[in-house]
Protein backbone atom coordinates (compact mmCIF):
# COMPACT_ATOMS: atom_id res chain seq x y z
CA UNK A 1 0.00 0.00 0.00
CA UNK A 2 2.71 2.46 1.03
CA UNK A 3 6.35 2.00 0.10
CA UNK A 4 8.98 4.52 1.12
CA UNK A 5 12.44 3.97 -0.32
CA UNK A 6 15.63 5.72 0.74
CA UNK A 7 13.84 8.97 1.59
CA UNK A 8 15.95 12.08 2.19
CA UNK A 9 14.16 15.26 3.27
CA UNK A 10 15.47 18.67 4.25
CA UNK A 11 13.94 21.91 5.49
CA UNK A 12 15.69 25.11 4.45
CA UNK A 13 18.85 23.20 3.71
CA UNK A 14 18.84 21.21 6.95
CA UNK A 15 18.62 17.46 6.51
CA UNK A 16 15.92 15.93 8.69
CA UNK A 17 15.24 12.53 7.12
CA UNK A 18 18.35 10.71 5.97
CA UNK A 19 17.62 7.54 4.06
CA UNK A 20 14.39 6.21 5.50
CA UNK A 21 12.77 3.11 4.03
CA UNK A 22 9.46 1.65 5.17
CA UNK A 23 6.88 -0.60 3.60
CA UNK A 24 3.31 -0.92 4.88
CA UNK A 25 0.94 -3.51 3.44
CA UNK A 26 -2.84 -3.55 3.42
CA UNK A 27 -4.32 -4.34 6.83
CA UNK A 28 -1.11 -3.76 8.78
CA UNK A 29 -0.57 -1.51 11.76
CA UNK A 30 2.92 -0.10 12.10
CA UNK A 31 4.17 1.87 15.05
CA UNK A 32 6.94 4.41 14.61
CA UNK A 33 8.72 5.35 17.82
CA UNK A 34 11.59 7.68 18.38
CA UNK A 35 13.00 10.50 20.47
CA UNK A 36 12.24 14.20 19.95
CA UNK A 37 13.76 15.57 16.76
CA UNK A 38 14.25 12.18 15.13
CA UNK A 39 12.05 13.10 12.13
CA UNK A 40 8.71 11.47 13.05
CA UNK A 41 6.50 14.50 12.46
CA UNK A 42 8.49 15.51 9.39
CA UNK A 43 7.74 12.12 7.88
CA UNK A 44 4.01 12.55 8.56
CA UNK A 45 3.99 16.03 6.95
CA UNK A 46 5.92 14.79 3.92
CA UNK A 47 3.44 11.94 3.46
CA UNK A 48 0.49 14.34 3.64
CA UNK A 49 2.18 16.76 1.23
CA UNK A 50 2.77 19.85 3.33
CA UNK A 51 4.75 22.62 1.64
CA UNK A 52 8.22 23.58 2.74
CA UNK A 53 9.82 20.14 2.73
CA UNK A 54 12.46 19.42 0.14
CA UNK A 55 12.60 15.83 -1.10
CA UNK A 56 16.31 15.42 -1.89
CA UNK A 57 16.23 11.75 -2.73
CA UNK A 58 14.06 8.66 -2.61
CA UNK A 59 10.56 7.59 -3.63
CA UNK A 60 7.17 7.18 -2.02
CA UNK A 61 4.70 4.91 -3.72
CA UNK A 62 1.08 4.77 -2.60
CA UNK A 63 -1.32 2.23 -4.12
CA UNK A 64 0.86 2.02 -7.21
CA UNK A 65 1.04 5.79 -7.68
CA UNK A 66 3.87 8.22 -7.09
CA UNK A 67 2.57 9.95 -3.96
CA UNK A 68 4.91 12.90 -4.45
CA UNK A 69 3.09 13.83 -7.68
CA UNK A 70 -0.18 14.45 -5.84
CA UNK A 71 -1.41 17.65 -4.16
CA UNK A 72 -2.38 17.56 -0.48
CA UNK A 73 -6.12 17.32 -1.22
CA UNK A 74 -5.56 14.69 -3.92
CA UNK A 75 -3.67 12.52 -1.44
CA UNK A 76 -6.48 12.90 1.08
CA UNK A 77 -9.11 11.96 -1.48
CA UNK A 78 -6.97 8.99 -2.54
CA UNK A 79 -7.42 7.67 1.01
CA UNK A 80 -4.50 9.09 2.97
CA UNK A 81 -5.31 10.65 6.31
CA UNK A 82 -3.08 12.43 8.81
CA UNK A 83 -4.36 12.89 12.35
CA UNK A 84 -2.42 15.94 13.49
CA UNK A 85 -0.44 16.28 16.66
CA UNK A 86 -1.56 19.91 16.86
CA UNK A 87 -4.84 20.28 14.93
CA UNK A 88 -5.38 23.75 13.47
CA UNK A 89 -7.94 26.09 15.02
CA UNK A 90 -10.31 27.51 12.39
CA UNK A 91 -12.30 30.46 13.79
CA UNK A 92 -15.52 31.25 11.91
CA UNK A 93 -15.96 27.73 10.49
CA UNK A 94 -18.49 25.56 12.28
CA UNK A 95 -17.24 22.04 12.96
CA UNK A 96 -20.23 20.33 11.34
CA UNK A 97 -19.88 22.52 8.22
CA UNK A 98 -16.24 21.53 7.95
CA UNK A 99 -17.08 17.83 8.29
CA UNK A 100 -19.79 18.11 5.64
CA UNK A 101 -17.45 19.93 3.24
CA UNK A 102 -14.78 17.26 3.74
CA UNK A 103 -17.28 14.43 3.13
CA UNK A 104 -18.61 16.13 0.02
CA UNK A 105 -15.10 16.68 -1.34
CA UNK A 106 -14.46 12.97 -1.08
CA UNK A 107 -17.86 12.14 -2.62
CA UNK A 108 -17.17 14.53 -5.48
CA UNK A 109 -13.83 12.83 -6.03
CA UNK A 110 -15.61 9.46 -6.12
CA UNK A 111 -18.26 10.81 -8.51
CA UNK A 112 -21.01 10.63 -5.91
CA UNK A 113 -23.69 13.27 -5.26
CA UNK A 114 -23.49 15.50 -2.16
CA UNK A 115 -24.59 13.89 1.07
CA UNK A 116 -28.15 14.75 2.08
CA UNK A 117 -28.85 16.43 5.39
CA UNK A 118 -30.47 13.44 7.06
CA UNK A 119 -27.78 10.99 6.01
CA UNK A 120 -25.11 13.42 7.22
CA UNK A 121 -26.80 13.87 10.59
CA UNK A 122 -27.04 10.10 11.08
CA UNK A 123 -23.44 9.51 10.07
CA UNK A 124 -22.06 12.17 12.39
CA UNK A 125 -24.28 11.19 15.28
CA UNK A 126 -23.25 7.54 15.25
CA UNK A 127 -19.52 8.31 15.20
CA UNK A 128 -19.64 11.32 17.51
CA UNK A 129 -21.49 9.39 20.20
CA UNK A 130 -18.85 6.66 20.23
CA UNK A 131 -16.17 9.28 20.80
CA UNK A 132 -18.15 11.15 23.44
CA UNK A 133 -18.51 14.21 21.21
CA UNK A 134 -21.75 16.06 21.96
CA UNK A 135 -23.88 17.89 19.41
CA UNK A 136 -22.96 21.16 21.14
CA UNK A 137 -19.32 20.67 20.16
CA UNK A 138 -20.25 20.18 16.50
CA UNK A 139 -21.86 23.61 16.48
CA UNK A 140 -18.73 25.30 17.78
CA UNK A 141 -16.00 26.68 15.53
CA UNK A 142 -13.58 23.97 14.50
CA UNK A 143 -11.02 23.27 17.26
CA UNK A 144 -11.50 26.75 18.71
CA UNK A 145 -11.40 26.63 22.52
CA UNK A 146 -11.36 22.84 22.36
CA UNK A 147 -9.36 21.13 25.11
CA UNK A 148 -6.36 19.03 24.07
CA UNK A 149 -8.45 15.86 24.38
CA UNK A 150 -11.35 17.30 22.39
CA UNK A 151 -9.03 18.24 19.55
CA UNK A 152 -7.69 14.69 19.34
CA UNK A 153 -11.20 13.22 19.45
CA UNK A 154 -12.14 15.60 16.63
CA UNK A 155 -9.27 14.23 14.54
CA UNK A 156 -10.45 10.68 15.13
CA UNK A 157 -14.04 11.70 14.29
CA UNK A 158 -12.83 13.08 10.96
CA UNK A 159 -10.91 9.89 10.34
CA UNK A 160 -13.92 7.73 11.19
CA UNK A 161 -16.23 9.47 8.73
CA UNK A 162 -13.68 9.79 5.93
CA UNK A 163 -12.67 6.11 6.26
CA UNK A 164 -9.11 6.38 4.91
CA UNK A 165 -7.16 3.44 3.50
CA UNK A 166 -4.00 4.68 5.13
CA UNK A 167 -4.13 6.64 8.37
CA UNK A 168 -1.16 8.28 10.03
CA UNK A 169 -1.63 9.14 13.68
CA UNK A 170 0.95 11.72 14.73
CA UNK A 171 1.33 11.51 18.52
CA UNK A 172 -2.40 11.23 18.95
CA UNK A 173 -1.77 10.09 22.54
CA UNK A 174 0.01 13.27 23.61
CA UNK A 175 -2.08 15.38 25.95
CA UNK A 176 -4.68 12.67 26.53
CA UNK A 177 -5.79 11.43 29.92
CA UNK A 178 -6.35 7.70 30.46
CA UNK A 179 -10.08 7.80 29.64
CA UNK A 180 -9.59 9.86 26.49
CA UNK A 181 -6.76 7.58 25.43
CA UNK A 182 -9.05 4.58 25.70
CA UNK A 183 -11.90 6.28 23.81
CA UNK A 184 -9.59 7.46 21.02
CA UNK A 185 -7.97 4.02 20.75
CA UNK A 186 -11.37 2.35 20.49
CA UNK A 187 -12.19 4.75 17.66
CA UNK A 188 -9.06 3.66 15.84
CA UNK A 189 -9.65 -0.05 16.49
CA UNK A 190 -13.18 0.24 15.12
CA UNK A 191 -11.80 1.36 11.78
CA UNK A 192 -9.13 -1.31 11.72
CA UNK A 193 -9.76 -3.93 9.04
CA UNK A 194 -7.98 -6.00 6.44
CA UNK A 195 -8.61 -3.20 3.98
CA UNK A 196 -6.81 -0.36 5.68
CA UNK A 197 -3.48 0.36 7.29
CA UNK A 198 -2.13 2.56 10.05
CA UNK A 199 1.11 4.28 10.87
CA UNK A 200 1.01 5.13 14.55
CA UNK A 201 3.63 7.65 15.60
CA UNK A 202 4.24 7.85 19.33
CA UNK A 203 6.80 8.39 22.07
CA UNK A 204 5.28 5.91 24.44
CA UNK A 205 4.44 2.27 24.51
CA UNK A 206 1.26 3.11 26.46
CA UNK A 207 -0.80 3.83 23.33
CA UNK A 208 0.33 0.55 21.80
CA UNK A 209 -1.29 -1.35 24.66
CA UNK A 210 -4.58 -0.15 23.23
CA UNK A 211 -3.74 -0.19 19.53
CA UNK A 212 -1.73 -3.35 19.08
CA UNK A 213 0.74 -2.90 16.22
CA UNK A 214 1.89 -5.65 13.87
CA UNK A 215 5.29 -4.00 13.54
CA UNK A 216 7.30 -1.54 15.60
CA UNK A 217 10.03 0.65 14.11
CA UNK A 218 12.47 2.85 15.91
CA UNK A 219 13.54 6.04 14.19
CA UNK A 220 16.64 7.93 15.21
CA UNK A 221 18.47 10.73 13.45
CA UNK A 222 16.28 10.55 10.35
CA UNK A 223 16.21 6.87 9.64
CA UNK A 224 14.79 3.62 10.94
CA UNK A 225 17.41 2.00 13.11
CA UNK A 226 15.53 -1.05 14.33
CA UNK A 227 12.34 -2.91 13.44
CA UNK A 228 10.53 -5.68 15.22
CA UNK A 229 7.20 -6.74 16.66
CA UNK A 230 5.36 -5.46 19.74
CA UNK A 231 8.11 -6.78 22.04
CA UNK A 232 10.42 -4.06 20.67
CA UNK A 233 8.13 -1.44 22.18
CA UNK A 234 8.35 -3.17 25.54
CA UNK A 235 12.11 -3.38 25.27
CA UNK A 236 12.24 0.31 24.41
CA UNK A 237 10.14 1.24 27.41
CA UNK A 238 12.61 -0.63 29.60
CA UNK A 239 15.92 0.50 28.14
CA UNK A 240 15.17 3.91 26.60
CA UNK A 241 15.97 5.27 23.16
CA UNK A 242 19.65 5.87 23.67
CA UNK A 243 20.40 2.29 24.56
CA UNK A 244 18.36 0.82 21.72
CA UNK A 245 19.86 3.22 19.14
CA UNK A 246 23.34 2.19 20.23
CA UNK A 247 22.69 -1.52 19.90
CA UNK A 248 21.06 -1.05 16.51
Amino acid at each position, binding site marked *: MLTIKNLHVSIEGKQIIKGLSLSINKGEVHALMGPNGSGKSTLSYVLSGKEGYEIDEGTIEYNGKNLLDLE*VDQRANAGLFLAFQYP*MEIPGVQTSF*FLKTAINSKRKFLGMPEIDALEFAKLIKSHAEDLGIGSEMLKRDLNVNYSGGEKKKQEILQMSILKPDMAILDETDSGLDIDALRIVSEGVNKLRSEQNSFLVITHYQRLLNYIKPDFVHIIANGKIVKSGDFSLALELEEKGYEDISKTA
Partner: protein
Amino acid sequence: MSTAVKLHTMPSRNMSNYAQKALLNNPFENFKIENYKYAQLHKSITTNLSLKGFKPDFSSFNSFKNLKLSDGTNTDLLGDLNKWNYNNTDSYFRVNSISERPSIKIDLDLHEDEVIYLDLSIFKENIQLFKATELPKTLIINNSNFSDDCPRSIFLNLSENAKLNIIHFNISNSKSFLYFEINQQNKSNVKFLSFQSNNVHTRNEFFASLEENCSLDIYGLNFHNHGVNDNYSFIQHMKPSSQSREVFKSIVKNGAVTNFQGKIYVDSIAQKTDGYQMSRSLILDNESKANNKPELEIYADDVKCSHGSTVSKLNQDQVYYFQSRGINEEQAVKILQKAFLVETLDVIENPQIKEYSYNLLDARL
Protein backbone atom coordinates in the same frame (compact mmCIF):
# COMPACT_ATOMS: atom_id res chain seq x y z
CA MET B 1 -9.74 71.31 -12.72
CA SER B 2 -10.72 72.87 -9.43
CA THR B 3 -12.12 70.87 -6.58
CA ALA B 4 -12.36 73.69 -4.06
CA VAL B 5 -15.49 74.96 -2.46
CA LYS B 6 -15.88 78.64 -3.14
CA LEU B 7 -15.49 80.17 0.27
CA HIS B 8 -17.23 83.42 -0.65
CA THR B 9 -20.50 81.53 -1.11
CA MET B 10 -20.61 80.48 2.51
CA PRO B 11 -22.69 82.20 5.17
CA SER B 12 -19.62 83.32 7.02
CA ARG B 13 -21.44 84.94 9.94
CA ASN B 14 -22.60 81.48 11.05
CA MET B 15 -19.27 79.81 10.58
CA SER B 16 -16.76 79.52 13.33
CA ASN B 17 -13.12 80.00 12.56
CA TYR B 18 -12.80 76.33 13.24
CA ALA B 19 -15.27 75.36 10.53
CA GLN B 20 -13.69 77.73 8.07
CA LYS B 21 -10.36 76.14 8.75
CA ALA B 22 -11.96 72.75 8.08
CA LEU B 23 -13.10 73.91 4.67
CA LEU B 24 -9.74 75.35 3.83
CA ASN B 25 -8.27 71.93 4.50
CA ASN B 26 -9.71 70.53 1.33
CA PRO B 27 -8.66 66.87 1.08
CA PHE B 28 -9.30 66.90 -2.66
CA GLU B 29 -6.38 69.27 -2.94
CA ASN B 30 -4.25 68.46 0.06
CA PHE B 31 -3.49 64.83 0.79
CA LYS B 32 -1.51 65.57 3.95
CA ILE B 33 -4.53 66.22 6.19
CA GLU B 34 -4.30 63.69 9.00
CA ASN B 35 -7.83 62.26 8.95
CA TYR B 36 -7.78 62.01 5.14
CA LYS B 37 -4.26 60.62 5.18
CA TYR B 38 -4.95 57.42 3.27
CA ALA B 39 -8.07 58.52 1.36
CA GLN B 40 -6.21 59.59 -1.80
CA LEU B 41 -9.00 62.05 -2.60
CA HIS B 42 -6.57 64.30 -4.46
CA LYS B 43 -6.44 61.56 -7.08
CA SER B 44 -10.21 61.49 -7.41
CA ILE B 45 -11.28 64.78 -8.90
CA THR B 46 -14.73 65.83 -7.77
CA THR B 47 -16.03 68.67 -9.78
CA ASN B 48 -19.02 70.02 -7.90
CA LEU B 49 -19.42 69.75 -4.17
CA SER B 50 -21.72 72.73 -3.91
CA LEU B 51 -25.46 72.44 -4.37
CA LYS B 52 -26.41 75.97 -3.46
CA GLY B 53 -29.79 76.75 -4.97
CA PHE B 54 -30.51 73.09 -5.66
CA LYS B 55 -34.24 72.52 -5.14
CA PRO B 56 -35.26 69.16 -3.65
CA ASP B 57 -37.56 67.18 -5.92
CA PHE B 58 -39.76 64.97 -3.76
CA SER B 59 -41.46 63.34 -6.72
CA SER B 60 -38.58 60.89 -6.97
CA PHE B 61 -39.39 59.42 -3.54
CA ASN B 62 -42.14 57.10 -4.62
CA SER B 63 -41.16 54.47 -2.11
CA PHE B 64 -41.44 57.04 0.64
CA LYS B 65 -44.84 58.43 -0.11
CA ASN B 66 -46.09 57.54 3.38
CA LEU B 67 -43.24 59.37 4.98
CA LYS B 68 -43.54 62.83 6.29
CA LEU B 69 -40.98 64.69 4.29
CA SER B 70 -40.33 68.29 4.92
CA ASP B 71 -37.91 70.76 3.51
CA GLY B 72 -35.28 71.00 6.21
CA THR B 73 -33.34 74.11 6.90
CA ASN B 74 -29.66 74.32 7.48
CA THR B 75 -29.98 76.36 10.61
CA ASP B 76 -30.12 73.63 13.22
CA LEU B 77 -27.35 71.69 11.55
CA LEU B 78 -25.16 74.74 11.45
CA GLY B 79 -25.68 75.16 15.19
CA ASP B 80 -23.97 71.82 15.64
CA LEU B 81 -20.85 72.68 13.77
CA ASN B 82 -18.69 72.66 16.86
CA LYS B 83 -20.15 69.64 18.57
CA TRP B 84 -17.38 67.22 17.68
CA ASN B 85 -14.40 66.97 19.97
CA TYR B 86 -11.71 67.08 17.40
CA ASN B 87 -8.24 68.16 18.23
CA ASN B 88 -7.22 68.43 14.63
CA THR B 89 -9.13 68.89 11.40
CA ASP B 90 -12.87 68.44 11.19
CA SER B 91 -14.72 66.39 8.62
CA TYR B 92 -14.50 68.26 5.37
CA PHE B 93 -17.55 66.45 4.03
CA ARG B 94 -19.69 67.45 6.99
CA VAL B 95 -18.80 71.11 7.05
CA ASN B 96 -19.10 71.25 3.31
CA SER B 97 -22.52 69.66 3.16
CA ILE B 98 -23.92 71.72 6.02
CA SER B 99 -22.77 74.98 4.55
CA GLU B 100 -23.46 74.23 0.90
CA ARG B 101 -26.52 72.07 0.60
CA PRO B 102 -30.22 72.13 1.48
CA SER B 103 -31.65 69.44 3.74
CA ILE B 104 -34.70 67.24 3.86
CA LYS B 105 -36.17 65.56 6.92
CA ILE B 106 -37.51 62.05 7.18
CA ASP B 107 -39.32 60.69 10.24
CA LEU B 108 -38.68 56.94 10.24
CA ASP B 109 -41.48 56.25 12.72
CA LEU B 110 -44.07 57.44 10.22
CA HIS B 111 -43.17 54.69 7.80
CA GLU B 112 -45.36 51.61 8.09
CA ASP B 113 -42.93 49.01 6.78
CA GLU B 114 -40.37 47.42 9.03
CA VAL B 115 -37.69 47.80 6.38
CA ILE B 116 -37.03 51.18 4.85
CA TYR B 117 -34.91 51.48 1.74
CA LEU B 118 -33.03 54.67 1.08
CA ASP B 119 -31.33 54.98 -2.29
CA LEU B 120 -28.81 57.77 -2.06
CA SER B 121 -28.26 57.92 -5.80
CA ILE B 122 -31.59 59.67 -6.37
CA PHE B 123 -30.95 62.84 -4.38
CA LYS B 124 -28.10 65.00 -3.28
CA GLU B 125 -29.61 66.91 -0.37
CA ASN B 126 -28.49 66.39 3.20
CA ILE B 127 -30.83 63.92 4.80
CA GLN B 128 -31.95 64.32 8.38
CA LEU B 129 -33.44 61.13 9.77
CA PHE B 130 -35.42 60.87 12.99
CA LYS B 131 -36.37 57.82 15.02
CA ALA B 132 -38.12 58.22 18.37
CA THR B 133 -39.50 54.76 19.18
CA GLU B 134 -38.34 51.30 20.19
CA LEU B 135 -40.26 49.70 17.32
CA PRO B 136 -37.91 47.38 15.41
CA LYS B 137 -36.93 48.95 12.15
CA THR B 138 -34.24 48.31 9.60
CA LEU B 139 -32.93 51.09 7.44
CA ILE B 140 -31.12 50.08 4.27
CA ILE B 141 -28.90 52.79 2.89
CA ASN B 142 -27.64 52.19 -0.59
CA ASN B 143 -24.91 54.35 -1.99
CA SER B 144 -23.97 52.06 -4.81
CA ASN B 145 -24.53 52.75 -8.52
CA PHE B 146 -23.67 56.41 -8.43
CA SER B 147 -23.44 58.19 -11.72
CA ASP B 148 -22.02 61.32 -10.07
CA ASP B 149 -19.35 61.74 -7.44
CA CYS B 150 -21.08 64.23 -5.21
CA PRO B 151 -20.69 63.36 -1.51
CA ARG B 152 -23.87 62.47 0.40
CA SER B 153 -24.53 63.37 4.01
CA ILE B 154 -26.90 61.75 6.46
CA PHE B 155 -27.68 63.02 9.93
CA LEU B 156 -29.48 60.47 12.09
CA ASN B 157 -31.10 61.53 15.34
CA LEU B 158 -32.32 58.97 17.85
CA SER B 159 -34.49 60.04 20.75
CA GLU B 160 -34.41 58.46 24.18
CA ASN B 161 -34.93 54.65 24.06
CA ALA B 162 -35.07 54.63 20.26
CA LYS B 163 -33.73 51.62 18.39
CA LEU B 164 -32.53 51.18 14.82
CA ASN B 165 -30.78 48.58 12.71
CA ILE B 166 -28.93 50.07 9.75
CA ILE B 167 -27.39 48.26 6.80
CA HIS B 168 -25.29 50.33 4.44
CA PHE B 169 -24.47 48.89 1.02
CA ASN B 170 -21.58 50.32 -0.94
CA ILE B 171 -21.05 47.62 -3.49
CA SER B 172 -20.57 48.85 -7.01
CA ASN B 173 -17.98 49.91 -9.49
CA SER B 174 -18.41 53.60 -8.83
CA LYS B 175 -17.00 56.44 -6.81
CA SER B 176 -18.87 57.43 -3.71
CA PHE B 177 -18.31 59.69 -0.74
CA LEU B 178 -20.47 59.50 2.34
CA TYR B 179 -20.71 61.35 5.62
CA PHE B 180 -22.88 59.51 8.12
CA GLU B 181 -23.65 61.02 11.50
CA ILE B 182 -25.45 59.30 14.36
CA ASN B 183 -26.68 61.30 17.34
CA GLN B 184 -27.87 59.05 20.16
CA GLN B 185 -29.85 60.31 23.10
CA ASN B 186 -30.04 58.38 26.39
CA LYS B 187 -30.70 54.64 26.25
CA SER B 188 -30.88 54.51 22.48
CA ASN B 189 -29.53 51.53 20.59
CA VAL B 190 -28.01 51.35 17.11
CA LYS B 191 -26.71 48.34 15.25
CA PHE B 192 -24.95 49.30 12.07
CA LEU B 193 -23.29 47.32 9.29
CA SER B 194 -21.46 48.83 6.36
CA PHE B 195 -21.12 46.27 3.57
CA GLN B 196 -18.53 47.45 1.08
CA SER B 197 -17.21 45.65 -1.94
CA ASN B 198 -15.39 46.37 -5.20
CA ASN B 199 -15.69 50.12 -5.45
CA VAL B 200 -13.56 52.35 -7.66
CA HIS B 201 -12.97 54.93 -4.95
CA THR B 202 -14.86 55.46 -1.72
CA ARG B 203 -14.57 57.50 1.39
CA ASN B 204 -17.08 56.69 4.12
CA GLU B 205 -17.14 58.70 7.32
CA PHE B 206 -19.04 57.45 10.34
CA PHE B 207 -19.51 59.88 13.20
CA ALA B 208 -21.41 58.94 16.33
CA SER B 209 -22.15 60.89 19.48
CA LEU B 210 -23.48 58.97 22.49
CA GLU B 211 -25.26 60.24 25.57
CA GLU B 212 -26.07 58.15 28.66
CA ASN B 213 -26.64 54.35 28.67
CA CYS B 214 -26.54 54.06 24.89
CA SER B 215 -25.23 51.20 22.89
CA LEU B 216 -23.71 51.31 19.43
CA ASP B 217 -22.51 48.34 17.39
CA ILE B 218 -20.78 49.44 14.23
CA TYR B 219 -19.40 46.79 11.90
CA GLY B 220 -17.65 47.00 8.58
CA LEU B 221 -17.37 44.25 5.98
CA ASN B 222 -14.94 44.99 3.19
CA PHE B 223 -14.08 42.77 0.29
CA HIS B 224 -12.23 44.40 -2.59
CA ASN B 225 -10.44 43.30 -5.69
CA HIS B 226 -9.75 46.80 -6.90
CA GLY B 227 -9.99 50.45 -5.94
CA VAL B 228 -9.31 52.57 -2.89
CA ASN B 229 -11.72 52.08 -0.02
CA ASP B 230 -11.32 54.49 2.81
CA ASN B 231 -13.23 54.42 6.09
CA TYR B 232 -13.03 56.95 8.85
CA SER B 233 -14.89 56.72 12.13
CA PHE B 234 -15.17 58.97 15.13
CA ILE B 235 -17.22 57.81 18.10
CA GLN B 236 -17.58 60.17 21.02
CA HIS B 237 -18.89 59.21 24.44
CA MET B 238 -20.26 62.40 25.96
CA LYS B 239 -22.15 61.03 28.98
CA PRO B 240 -21.60 58.09 31.38
CA SER B 241 -22.32 54.38 30.96
CA SER B 242 -22.58 53.93 27.22
CA GLN B 243 -20.98 51.22 25.21
CA SER B 244 -19.66 51.19 21.67
CA ARG B 245 -18.36 48.20 19.80
CA GLU B 246 -16.66 48.69 16.47
CA VAL B 247 -15.34 45.91 14.27
CA PHE B 248 -13.99 46.58 10.78
CA LYS B 249 -12.86 43.66 8.68
CA SER B 250 -11.39 43.83 5.22
CA ILE B 251 -9.94 41.54 2.57
CA VAL B 252 -8.02 42.96 -0.37
CA LYS B 253 -6.53 41.48 -3.51
CA ASN B 254 -5.45 42.42 -7.06
CA GLY B 255 -3.94 45.70 -5.91
CA ALA B 256 -6.93 47.00 -3.94
CA VAL B 257 -6.38 49.37 -1.04
CA THR B 258 -8.40 49.38 2.17
CA ASN B 259 -8.04 51.96 4.90
CA PHE B 260 -9.47 52.25 8.36
CA GLN B 261 -8.89 55.20 10.62
CA GLY B 262 -10.99 55.23 13.76
CA LYS B 263 -11.06 57.10 17.00
CA ILE B 264 -12.97 56.61 20.24
CA TYR B 265 -13.24 59.81 22.26
CA VAL B 266 -14.32 59.62 25.91
CA ASP B 267 -15.29 62.89 27.54
CA SER B 268 -14.15 63.60 31.12
CA ILE B 269 -17.68 63.11 32.48
CA ALA B 270 -18.33 59.91 30.48
CA GLN B 271 -17.38 57.52 33.30
CA LYS B 272 -18.19 53.79 32.98
CA THR B 273 -17.78 53.98 29.22
CA ASP B 274 -17.21 50.62 27.59
CA GLY B 275 -15.50 51.07 24.25
CA TYR B 276 -14.07 48.46 21.91
CA GLN B 277 -12.51 48.90 18.52
CA MET B 278 -10.99 46.25 16.29
CA SER B 279 -9.78 46.54 12.71
CA ARG B 280 -8.50 43.47 10.94
CA SER B 281 -7.30 43.08 7.37
CA LEU B 282 -6.34 40.14 5.24
CA ILE B 283 -4.09 40.80 2.26
CA LEU B 284 -4.25 38.07 -0.35
CA ASP B 285 -1.34 39.11 -2.56
CA ASN B 286 1.73 41.33 -2.71
CA GLU B 287 0.08 44.11 -4.74
CA SER B 288 -2.69 45.00 -2.30
CA LYS B 289 -2.52 47.24 0.72
CA ALA B 290 -4.22 47.79 4.07
CA ASN B 291 -3.77 50.77 6.36
CA ASN B 292 -5.30 50.55 9.83
CA LYS B 293 -4.99 53.37 12.32
CA PRO B 294 -6.83 52.92 15.61
CA GLU B 295 -6.94 55.77 18.11
CA LEU B 296 -8.24 56.33 21.63
CA GLU B 297 -8.64 59.69 23.32
CA ILE B 298 -9.81 59.29 26.91
CA TYR B 299 -10.37 62.00 29.49
CA ALA B 300 -12.36 59.98 32.08
CA ASP B 301 -10.61 57.75 34.61
CA ASP B 302 -13.15 54.97 35.18
CA VAL B 303 -13.64 53.47 31.73
CA LYS B 304 -13.01 50.26 29.87
CA CYS B 305 -11.60 50.90 26.42
CA SER B 306 -9.63 48.62 24.19
CA HIS B 307 -8.53 48.57 20.61
CA GLY B 308 -6.64 46.29 18.33
CA SER B 309 -5.53 46.09 14.76
CA THR B 310 -4.12 43.32 12.62
CA VAL B 311 -2.94 43.08 9.04
CA SER B 312 -1.97 39.64 7.82
CA LYS B 313 -1.94 37.19 4.97
CA LEU B 314 -4.15 34.13 4.84
CA ASN B 315 -2.88 31.48 7.25
CA GLN B 316 -1.36 28.82 4.98
CA ASP B 317 -1.42 26.24 7.78
CA GLN B 318 -5.20 26.60 7.87
CA VAL B 319 -5.38 26.10 4.10
CA TYR B 320 -3.19 23.02 4.49
CA TYR B 321 -5.49 21.65 7.18
CA PHE B 322 -8.47 21.92 4.81
CA GLN B 323 -6.50 20.29 2.00
CA SER B 324 -5.44 17.46 4.26
CA ARG B 325 -9.13 16.64 4.56
CA GLY B 326 -9.62 16.54 0.79
CA ILE B 327 -10.90 20.09 0.31
CA ASN B 328 -9.13 21.78 -2.58
CA GLU B 329 -7.15 24.99 -2.17
CA GLU B 330 -9.61 27.23 -4.01
CA GLN B 331 -12.52 26.12 -1.87
CA ALA B 332 -10.44 26.30 1.32
CA VAL B 333 -9.41 29.88 0.57
CA LYS B 334 -13.01 30.85 -0.12
CA ILE B 335 -14.28 29.29 3.11
CA LEU B 336 -11.53 30.92 5.15
CA GLN B 337 -12.26 34.35 3.66
CA LYS B 338 -15.91 33.98 4.48
CA ALA B 339 -15.06 32.78 7.98
CA PHE B 340 -12.97 35.90 8.46
CA LEU B 341 -15.74 38.30 7.42
CA VAL B 342 -18.91 36.55 8.46
CA GLU B 343 -19.15 37.67 12.11
CA THR B 344 -19.96 41.17 10.89
CA LEU B 345 -23.25 39.92 9.39
CA ASP B 346 -24.51 39.00 12.88
CA VAL B 347 -25.46 42.64 13.30
CA ILE B 348 -28.28 42.25 10.75
CA GLU B 349 -31.59 41.57 12.48
CA ASN B 350 -33.94 41.10 9.53
CA PRO B 351 -33.65 37.49 8.24
CA GLN B 352 -34.25 38.35 4.56
CA ILE B 353 -31.57 41.02 4.54
CA LYS B 354 -29.25 38.68 6.37
CA GLU B 355 -29.76 35.99 3.74
CA TYR B 356 -29.33 38.53 0.95
CA SER B 357 -26.04 39.64 2.53
CA TYR B 358 -24.77 36.07 2.93
CA ASN B 359 -25.54 35.38 -0.72
CA LEU B 360 -23.95 38.62 -1.83
CA LEU B 361 -20.80 37.74 0.09
CA ASP B 362 -20.75 34.24 -1.41
CA ALA B 363 -21.10 35.64 -4.89
CA ARG B 364 -18.29 38.13 -4.39
CA LEU B 365 -15.74 35.80 -2.82
